[in-house]
């Protein structure tokens, strides 16, 4: 087993990344999913994981290098693989490596749009499994919230990440913003895509939407993965919801966005700038205000949708960041069944971004445990 660790592609627009510090020394044993090296893009910073267990035999990329997606970062092999073999692997990789076409039109994953009633829904489909999973982002997010997760999950399912109504590149309408409006669009979308049942992964507001879907159309829901989910308890940070919706510029928005992460340094200028670009689109302000109004009634939403979890009728995985400042992790601790509840330390609300390897592994294990 000799395996390349390569520059990941986090999000459709990523073409290259800046190599940060190595977290593992050459010669060290690593487990599958261990973060071995940090990579920074103009939008986000994160750790690159080892795809399988092995020994880090070569750290090829140097800290400070800017390398294209797919470039060789390091080599993972057995401790007993001869040096010559590892070196030959590196030489061969480098000799054959061709950076991906920088033109996004050429190959690579593309988002697609599909008309569902009055909504043009933007989504990204990855993977080719017989089973389908759908990823639902939270309030003010978009399908890029899954940039550290979708490719990893797509090894086990056909994974559809979509921009919910009012978000991303989907039509900027949410009617009065309640969960039923969202569910209505989702069930029509599933019909249009020909998906009979799916494993649903919802973050924050997306979790509440998945719960509502399980009430309205249980036939569409094979399992639920709820990440820092709304709809499970009476508390939500209404200052955040209203502040995010009302912020008109960088200075106003930044402090709100920093509340999303346990490590606020993850909030880069580009991340805030991209959020502002979204917020400035016609119609977004009204959508966010309507959604914030509905989400602020956390107790009412929980009364409506939490019975799905309490009943235990649908297999459910719950993951939370211990330091979540938007929806407290106490709501996860208060759930009647704790066997599938995981609370991750030093992690904020954006649990799937801050702890991507752990979250991906928990979800995969959960899926694999299902019949």
């Amino acid at each position, binding site marked *: 087993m000799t395996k390349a660790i390569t520059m990941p592609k986090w999000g459709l627009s990523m073409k290259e990344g800046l190599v940060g510090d190595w977290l593992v020394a050459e010669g060290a044993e690593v487990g599958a999913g261990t973060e071995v090296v940090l990579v920074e893009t103009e939008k986000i910073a994160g750790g690159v994981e080892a795809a399988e267990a092995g020994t880090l035999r070569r750290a090829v990329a140097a800290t400070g290098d800017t390398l294209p997606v797919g470039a060789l970062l390091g080599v993972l092999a057995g401790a007993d693989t001869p040096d010559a073999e590892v070196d030959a692997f590196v030489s061969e990789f480098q000799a054959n490596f061709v950076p991906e076409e920088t033109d996004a039109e050429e190959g690579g994953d593309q988002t697609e749009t599909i008309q569902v009633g009055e909504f043009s829904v933007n989504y990204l489909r990855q993977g080719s499994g017989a089973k389908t999973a759908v990823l639902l982002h939270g309030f003010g997010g978009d399908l890029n919230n899954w940039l550290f997760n979708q490719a990893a999950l797509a090894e086990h399912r056909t994974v559809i990440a979509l921009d919910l109504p009012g978000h991303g590149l989907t039509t900027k309408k949410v009617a009065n913003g309640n969960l039923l409006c969202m569910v209505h669009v989702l069930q029509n979308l599933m019909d249009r895509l020909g998906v009979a049942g799916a494993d649903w992964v919802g973050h924050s507001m997306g979790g509440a939407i998945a719960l509502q879907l399980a009430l309205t159309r249980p036939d569409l829901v094979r399992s639920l993965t709820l990440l820092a989910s709304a709809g499970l308890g009476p508390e939500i940070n209404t200052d955040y919801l209203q502040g995010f919706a009302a912020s*008109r*510029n960088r200075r106003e928005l930044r402090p709100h966005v920093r509340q999303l992460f346990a490590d606020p340094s993850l909030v880069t200028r580009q991340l805030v700038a991209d959020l502002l670009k979204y917020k*400035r*689109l*016609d119609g977004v302000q009204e959508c966010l205000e309507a959604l914030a109004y509905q989400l602020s009634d956390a107790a009412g939403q929980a009364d409506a949708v939490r019975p799905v979890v309490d009943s235990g009728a649908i297999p459910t995985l719950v993951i939370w960041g211990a330091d979540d400042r938007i929806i407290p992790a106490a709501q996860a601790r208060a759930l009647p069944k704790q066997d599938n509840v995981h609370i991750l330390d030093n992690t904020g609300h954006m649990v799937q971004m801050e702890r991507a390897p752990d979250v991906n592994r928990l979800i995969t294990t959960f899926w694999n445990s299902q019949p």
Partner: protein
Amino acid sequence: MAQQTIRQAINQAFHQEMERDSTVILMGEDIIGGTGSPGEEEAWGGAMGIYKGLYRVYGDRLLDTPLSEAAFVGAAIGAATCGMRPVAELMFIDFLGVCFDQIFNQAAKFRYMFGGKAQTPVVIRTMYGAGLSAAAQHSQTLTSMFTHVPGIKVVCPSNPYDAKGLMIEAIRDNDPVIYCEHKKIYDTTGDVPEEMYSIPFGEADIRRDGDDVTIATYGMMVHRALEAADQLAADGIECEVVDLRTLSPLDTDTILESVENTGHLVVVDEAPPRCSVAADVAAQVARDGFRDLKAPVGMVTAPHTPVPFSPELEKHFVPSADKIAACVRDTLDD
């Protein structure tokens, strides 16, 4: 997201806003026909082709005017007070002199003098800047003339994304807006959303992060500043480039915040140095950010002369990336 030029981005803003709001009308010299145009159906769409394709869709909502800025700028302002949202094109900012009364003493004053009961939602698009050897009467950067007058908003985009969002904001704004376009950057490309969006006035954009020096500038000079920042980065000097985007209102908070971090400021302006936007920014930072400054503010501007016609002289007249980089080094050595 689609790549567009500044020209295409502004054109798209007009297509979308004219469709959305039937009170938006366009006025100006040659905006339908244009010198050398083979005819109305394939018109040039103004001296720089900004309006191409609009006449076919919106017909008589585009008005080709006589060569009289005093008349049609005044007419646009009058129409704005009567419920229309006119966009007048002052082909070159240099022609400001012949219609300045209408702008600075009429449009700028209505809201104030009528106790808030009048509004004047007019946009005046205009081209500025040197670099085409168009000589002293067609090459000036007179942005500070408008910025000086209370009651007018002044916009100066540097890239296609900002160009579209600021134009939509300008059209929807209820006050007179002067929208200044540098003639050399119409073909600059960048990502522009297909959807409509507006960028609020008074928010500068940080185009590059850096901890060593703040460079504050606008319009085409943003590109020169970014070039200079690239050069300097090779020597380990990291510049924060602040794109002012709107000169009035001016986002002094962003400049001051940046200077608080870097301790050094270089202002860059294609206008001559006296009473310019550069001089204004330098003065404001000297007043409100004095304790953060570790060295005097550096200024890179055109010289205090008319813009020369000779291409060689003109090249020396317009601030270059080299001059900006040299000023940054001087500021750091001070």
